[in-house]
């Protein structure tokens, strides 16, 4: 016979179990870390720390200099044989798309290397040349120091792991920083460049 405590116990197990699953999957919407991050940013833009960077021309600048200008950001390392090529191609297409439209405001693209040990100024320059970034609002930069790098990876939610062959594996995404300097959207790199360009254009300065 069914005991008296059975239904209450079952109810408790069900409540706790489904609450845990719902919490971990954001109400069955996501199952991955990247998905969770994407959803969180879409709900409320995240503020970012102001970090120091050095670009391919040796100019030191900080992330806050972009305030008032939305910017698309990606994370790369220049020796990357795979994903960073896709990302570079994405930004190249965005540049081509947007420079044709005669947009009033400058196009701001920023590729940040998470491998400052190997990516010196020369390496950044080569990467920029390879993808046609020269002097057209696309900066290839490396963090000024290790603390800036850690703060960047942490705040953008970028996870970099060794690929076992001397390179890295990293989440590849394109990040939109809005005019207020907040992380406003995380876009998959395989969306068409038109969408990336549109995201940049439609973001409020």
């Amino acid at each position, binding site marked *: 016979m069914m005991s008296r405590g*059975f239904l209450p116990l*079952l109810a408790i197990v069900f409540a706790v*179990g489904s609450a845990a*699953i719902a919490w971990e999957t954001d109400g069955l919407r996501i*199952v991955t870390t990247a*998905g969770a991050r994407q959803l969180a940013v879409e709900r409320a833009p995240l503020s970012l720390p102001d970090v120091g960077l050095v670009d391919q021309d040796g100019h030191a600048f900080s992330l806050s200099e972009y305030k008032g200008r939305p910017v698309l950001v990606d994370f790369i390392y220049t020796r990357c044989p795979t994903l960073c090529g896709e990302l570079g191609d994405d930004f190249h297409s965005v540049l081509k798309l947007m420079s044709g439209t005669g947009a009033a405001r400058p196009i701001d693209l920023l590729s940040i290397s998470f491998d400052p040990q190997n990516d010196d100024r020369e390496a950044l320059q080569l990467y920029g040349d390879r993808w046609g970034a020269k002097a057209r609002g696309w900066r290839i930069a490396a963090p000024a120091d290790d603390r800036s790098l850690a703060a960047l990876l942490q705040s953008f939610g970028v996870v970099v792991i060794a*690929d076992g062959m001397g390179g890295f*594996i990293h*989440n590849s995404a394109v990040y939109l920083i809005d005019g207020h300097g907040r992380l406003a959207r995380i876009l998959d790199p395989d969306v068409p460049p038109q969408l990336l360009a549109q995201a940049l254009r439609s973001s409020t300065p």
Partner: protein
Amino acid sequence: MNIRLLFIVSWWLAMWLLRATLERDMAVHMTVQVPMLIGLGLLLAAVVRPYELRWLAEADWLGIPGIVAVVFGTSFWMLPRALDEAVADPFFDMVKFLSLPLLVGLPLGLSWRRMPSLGRAFIWANFIPKIAAIGGLYLMAPTRLCAYYRLDQQAVAGWTLILVAVALGTLWFVAAFIGWPPYERKQGSPPYSSSRRRPVRITAGRGHPSRCRER
């Protein structure tokens, strides 16, 4: 202190100290560390069974609340995000180290004996294709599901899960059709003989005495 309890706790501590090693690879994480933590809970169940609270044992009618906890717990720790967080955050990993033995292994050990054999068969028949399906998903996913594991590790994890499913499925098939251990063959009678009184045994576990009395 109970020597068996001491063994369980020291094994648990050793696993905690070795957590980085056992989590470096996705397949090892999913098919060695997680099952071992559940196994510690099963051992714990054997130790605490004589001291089980009477009202709790009665509330666990036919082992249903217990097995529901097991299904929730195992599903939770199959989520890629949960694996990621366990690797990245020691606090979250401690949640795993506590929840798998206490909320999955322990209820499994305590409730299993209360479950009717067809119920056990139902759980097995659900669990085995679930592992295979998750393995297939990991294998076929073109992108990485875990931020902390490489795509090749994900594929190895997928294959390992499928192998585990095949192995468990084979074992269970033998148990269901022949009996486990398959001693009936040794007694000279073919397992498919219809003259046997019990040609089919669903699982190896004992029946449920209290249920028999009710009938």
